[in-house]
């Protein structure tokens, strides 16, 4: 575990400020994510965590601040361009393609890997067909990995919540991202499901070497799986360090243990 810390910074956000109209969602937040680590972002509701992820994958454009990815400063980019750079994510409220099967959802996750043109697609010959089967192999690996073989052909709208979360993880994994963003991957799960999910995240991190940044409320889980933690409250960065350092940080404890803000 210790050796990871010497790795490169895969992502660095510097002094990000994001406002909606008059409301400031994020104010001057900076932190970094190292290659190969599991980085957790924690904080109370409305702290700006999800907004932070939205900034990282380009859905929100901050008024101020810089985002560095792979050692390069990122200009104004659309979310789909950022996907091509190798950032994938899951969502707090599941954002699966409800009308599609599990398989199709995960296949869609490989969109950035598929390049055959319209003509080839129309005639389903040559590149289109070959590419489809190659990518299918990769997807099958993800399916095996997440143990969701039996629901391969099921429409995801009909799956129970826990499985949907897993399919969503699969969709993000299928992209083979360099950086995987998980927005509350364990929200609404029971203990057993949380254990499963934690195991998947750790496996992803260890087997594929994927860098993971996740938002999570359950401090127990965060303690178990995160290498480093950044704490946000009211749009500000109020703590950054290893899980151990964080629990002993007074500001963090206040924010969490209900020192009233009113």
């Amino acid at each position, binding site marked *: 575990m210790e050796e990871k810390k010497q790795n490169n910074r895969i992502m660095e956000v510097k002094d990000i400020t994001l406002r909606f109209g008059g409301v400031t969602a994020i104010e001057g937040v900076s932190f970094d994510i190292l290659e190969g680590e599991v980085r957790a972002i924690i904080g109370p509701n409305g702290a700006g965590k*999800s907004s932070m992820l*939205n900034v990282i994958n380009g*859905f929100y454009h901050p008024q101020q601040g810089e985002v560095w990815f792979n050692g390069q400063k990122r200009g104004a980019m659309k979310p789909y361009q950022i996907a091509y750079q190798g950032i994938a994510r899951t*969502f*707090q*409220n599941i*954002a699966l393609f409800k009308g599609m099967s599990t398989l199709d959802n995960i296949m869609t996750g490989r969109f950035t890997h598929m390049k055959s043109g319209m003509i080839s697609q129309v005639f389903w010959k040559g590149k289109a067909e070959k590419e489809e089967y190659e990518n299918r192999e990769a997807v099958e690996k993800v399916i095996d990995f997440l143990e969701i073989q039996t629901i391969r052909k099921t429409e995801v709208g009909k799956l129970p919540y826990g499985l949907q979360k897993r399919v969503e993880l699969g969709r993000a994994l299928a992209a083979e991202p360099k950086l995987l963003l998980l927005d509350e991957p364990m929200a609404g799960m029971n203990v057993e499901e949380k254990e499963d999910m934690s195991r998947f995240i750790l496996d992803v991190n260890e087997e594929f070497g994927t860098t993971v940044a996740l938002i999570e409320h359950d401090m127990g889980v965060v303690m178990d799986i995160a290498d480093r933690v950044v704490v946000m409250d009211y749009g500000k960065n109020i703590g950054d360090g290893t899980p151990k350092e964080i629990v002993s940080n007074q500001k963090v404890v206040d924010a969490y243990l209900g020192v009233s803000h009113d």
Partner: protein
Amino acid sequence: MFFLDPFFYEILISGLLAGVMYALVALGFVLIFKASGIFNFAQGVLALFAALTLVGFQTGQIPFAHLLSLFGLHATHWGAGFPTIVALLFSLGVMVLLAWLIVQIVLKPLVNQEGIILFMATIGLAYVLEGVGDLMWGANVKELNIGLPEGPSEIILDATDMFIDKLEISAAIVAIVLVVSLTLFSQYTKMGRALRAVADDHQAALSVGISLETIWWIVWSVSGLVALVAGVMWGAKSGVQFSLSLIALKALPVLMLGGFTSIPGAIVGGLIIGVGEKLFEFYIGPLIGGATENWFAYMLALLFLLFRPQGLFGEKIIERV
């Protein structure tokens, strides 16, 4: 300069009055969409049906006369009709009954379905109503006269040299009365507050003990009333016939512009569309061949939408993940 053109003001006023007529139709759409999220394709046919029923009562037509003639009954009229006011009340009664039937037969089994499904159901409804209306009252043109003043207003003509139809002025007054009373109804009555609650959140409304069915019934009844008014106004102009149901097409750009959920939006949208299309047709139309009103109304609405995708008064769409 065009504003020195004496016709500019007349076209402006004509446009405003036409806009009120469009808004009358659009209002029916808005009421139903706001309370139940249904895009009611049958609104135009509802207006036709209401007007047909009114004329039927007024002139004492025998319903389904043509169908009965198959069995050798050749009468078409009872011999006497009802006075206008009674006919109006009876027609309203029919619309309320119709609303109840629609809710019970069509909407109740489709609760919680997606918007497009409900939209489709109203298409089926439009077919049924069109058939029933024609079968009941016949497909010929019927004169509709409920005693509203007609012809150019002499006072305005003398004072300004403008021809403003009294019928349209009455339509504007009726529309204003309708909107004001609808607003008062939704602000100050228990039922009105319930309606707004449903519009905001179905679950919440249900949890405070308001039956969704009742709400829908009321909304469809009110919308039937609006359809009756629109049918009367348009029917007085052109006679009551199938084409009356096509006025719905005139209301769609108004809806786009005003937002599907806003009553003031329907009015303001109607005015903008009315004035816009009339000015364009009057000044630009002759240069490009005329008959531009149909598409221009949509283009105008489209232009607005490109800047405000949710319509002029629609609730702002906030995208979040």
